[in-house]
C-alpha cells in the first residue's frame, strides 16, 4: 500500500513538473526577448552619455572644470554641452556687438542677468579666464 502511494506521488511530481516546463516554454522565450531588448536600450544610453567626455581633450578640460559645458556647447571645437545657453563657437567675435563689452570684460562683469548670477556664484580665476578667452578666440576662427 505504502509503495503504491509512493509510486502515485512520484508519477504526480513527474507529470506536474513536465506540465510546468511544457506550458511555460513559450513564455520564457518571450521574457528572454524582452530582457535582450532592455539591455540594448541601456547600452545605447550609456554610449550617448559618455560621448561629450570622449570628445573633450585635455586642452579643453578648462571648459569642464569651470562647468561651462553644463550650459554651453562649443561646436566649432567639437565640444558638446548643455543646450540652455548659446553655443560659444562665435562668442569671441560676436560678444562686443551683442553685449557691448569684449569677452574678457564680460567674463569679469557680465552684462546679462543669467551670466551675472553664474559668475558671481563662481568667479573665474585670472589664469582660467585668460585661457578660456584664448580658446574661444581660436573657436571663432575655426
Amino acid at each position, binding site marked *: 500500500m505504502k*509503495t*503504491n*502511494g509512493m*509510486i*502515485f*506521488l*512520484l*508519477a*504526480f*511530481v*513527474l*507529470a*506536474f*513538473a*513536465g*506540465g*510546468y516546463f*511544457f*506550458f*511555460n516554454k513559450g513564455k520564457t522565450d518571450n521574457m528572454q526577448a524582452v530582457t535582450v531588448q532592455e539591455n540594448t*536600450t541601456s547600452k545605447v544610453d550609456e554610449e*550617448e552619455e559618455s560621448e561629450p567626455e570622449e570628445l573633450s581633450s585635455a586642452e579643453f578640460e578648462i571648459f569642464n572644470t569651470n562647468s561651462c559645458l553644463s550650459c554651453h556647447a562649443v561646436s566649432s571645437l567639437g565640444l558638446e554641452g548643455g*543646450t540652455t545657453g*548659446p*553655443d560659444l563657437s*562665435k562668442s569671441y567675435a*560676436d560678444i*562686443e*556687438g*551683442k*553685449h*557691448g563689452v569684449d569677452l574678457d570684460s564680460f567674463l569679469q562683469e557680465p552684462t*546679462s*542677468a*543669467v551670466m551675472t548670477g553664474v559668475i558671481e556664484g563662481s568667479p573665474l580665476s585670472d589664469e582660467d579666464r585668460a585661457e578660456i578667452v584664448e580658446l574661444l578666440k581660436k573657436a571663432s576662427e575655426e
Partner: protein
Amino acid sequence: MTTKRIISAVLGIIAGLLVAVVFFADFNKAGENAAGDIKSKAEKVYVPYGELDEYYMMSSGGHSGQLFVYGIPSMRKIRTVPIFTPDPATGYGYSKETKEMLGGFTWGDFHHPAISETAGDYDGEFLFANDVGNNRVAAVDLSTFTTVDIMSLPNMGGPHAGVFVTENTEYIALPTRFARPLDNKYADLDKYEEEYKGVVSMTTFDKETKKFDLAYQIVLPPWSYDLSDAGKKMSGDWIVMTTYNSEFATTNLEINASQNDRDYIVLVNWKKLEEEVAAGNYHDVNGAKMIDPRDHKGAIYAVPVAKSPHGVDVTPDGTRYIAAGKLAPMMTVFSFEQTFEAIEKEDFTDEKYGIPVLSYESVMEREVDPPGALGPLHTQFDDKGNAYNTMFISSEIVKWHIETGEVIDRTPSYYSPGHSAAAEGDTVSPDGKWLVSLNKISKDNFLSVGPSHPESMDLIDISGEKMEHIMAVPVDPEPHYAQIVHRDKINTITVYEKDENRENSVWKQEDARVERKGDEVHVYGIAMRSRFIFDAQSDRPDAVTVKEGDRVFFHLTNIDLDQDITHGFGINEYDLNFEVQPGQTSTLEFVADKAGVYPIYCTNFCSALHQEMSGYLLVEPK
C-alpha cells in the same frame, strides 16, 4: 500487486498533468494573441525618445490654408506651416513682408502639395501649394518651412487640378476647376459654351530668387478639370488631366454634370506648347500669355473615360496613366505607348471642340473592377509594381497589380478616404513602406468635440503582401492630399545666416536706433535674451515714443544666433504680433492711431527671464 502499482502510477500521472494544466496552461491563447498583435502594431509606430521618424508627411490643410507636417510612422504632428492664412503663432501675415505676400486675403483652400522634383524624384527643396479658394499658387522653402512666395493667377476659377510638377520642376501646373469668362469679363451663364473657358496655368519657380512667374496659360473648353499629373520618363513631355461636366451644365452639377457615360482625359504636350509660346504664338489676356493648343497640331488630345473620373495618376515608370472612376466603380489603365501609337496613326474616333478624341479601345490597356468596391478616387504606388486605390464609398484601400490587374488585398479605412499618400508613392521610386489614408469622415472614432467631428488618417503598413491597418489619428480640417518624403531629403537650417549687409538689420547694440522721416518712425532694433534694444542712446533702450498718427516701422533683428531661440514681439491692445527667428530681420509696420501707453513684450518663450523681455510703446496724443 503489479496491477495496483501500475494503476497508482497512471493515476499519479493523470493527476499530475491535470494539476499542471490547471496551474500553468493558458486558456486565453486567442486573447493573448490579439494582445500580442496590438503590441506589435504599437511597436511599429513607437519612436523612442532620442530617435526620429523616418519620413515627413506634408499634408495639405484644405480651407485652413495651412500645411500640416507629420512624422511617419509615429503620426505625431510636428508643425503647422501657414501658407494662405495669417498665423499669430508665427507672426505670419503680421510682419510687413508676409502681410504683403498674403495681399489682403485671409484664407485659402490648399488641396494638393507638390514637393519639387529632380528626375521625377523629390529633391526636398521646395513645396508648392494651390489655393482653390482664391486662385493662387505658393511656395514653401523646405530649408525653413516658411512660405516664400505667393502668386495670383488670372483667368482661373479655382485651380483644383493642381499643383503638380513636371519631372524636373520645369513647370508647376494648375488647371482650373470652374470655367469663367476670360479677362474678368461678364458673360451670362446662357453663354457658357461660347464665352466660358477652362484654363491651365503653367508657372515656373526660380529657386535662387524664390519667385514664381506665370510662363503661359492654356485655354480649353469649359469642362471642369478635376485632377492631373505630369508624365515621367517616356511620357515626361505630357500632362494628363481628368474632366467632368462635358455636359456644360451650369446649374445643379450633381445631377446635370453626371449625365454622359463618358468624360475625357485630356493630354497636353507642354514641351510643344513651350516652343510655340517661345515663338510668339500666344495672345495676351489679362497679363497672361494665352495659348490655344487646338491651333497647334500634336499639342492636345482627349481620351474617353468612364463617367466623371476623379484622379489620374502616372505610374512610377511613366508607361501608364490610371484613371479612378468616382462614379464608375473601376480603375482604367491607359498605356502611353498605345496612346503615342494611336496619335501616330491618327486613330481618332471623333473630335470634340477641336480636340482629336483617341479611340478608347486602342489606348485602354485594362479595366480593374474589384467586386463591391465603390467610389475609386486616387491611385498611389509601391516599389513592387502595385497600385493602391482609395474607395470613397465602400471605405477601403484596394491593392492591385498594375501589370496583371489582379486584386491582391483590400483593407477597410475609417471612413471615406479621399486621397491616400504612400511613402514617396507618386515618384519614380516609391518606397513601399507606409500608406496613409486621408479620410473625410471619422464618425465616433475619437472623443467627441461636438457636431464638427475631426477628419481622420489611417496609417497602413504596406511592406508585406497583405496590408496591415496600424492606427487611426484625428486631424484638423482638412487634408486633401499629402506627400511622404524621406527625412534624408529634407535639409533644414537652424539659424539664419548673419548677413551684416541685410537691409534694416542691426547686429550691434550700439547701432540700435530710432530714425524719424516726416511722419514715419523707423525703429532699427535688436531682440536678444532677454531684452529689446530699440535705441542704444536712450536711458530706456526698450521704450519708443511716437506721435499719434505716425506710421511706425519696427525693424527687428534677432541676434541670438542660437538654435531654437525665437523671439516674439507683441504690442498690447494694438492687435499686433510677429516673430523673429535666430539671425532673422523682420519688419512690423503700422499706424499708431491710438494715443496712450502700450506695453511691448516677447511673445515666444525664450529664456528664464522671458517675462522681463518687455518695453513700452508711448503714443503721444495729437
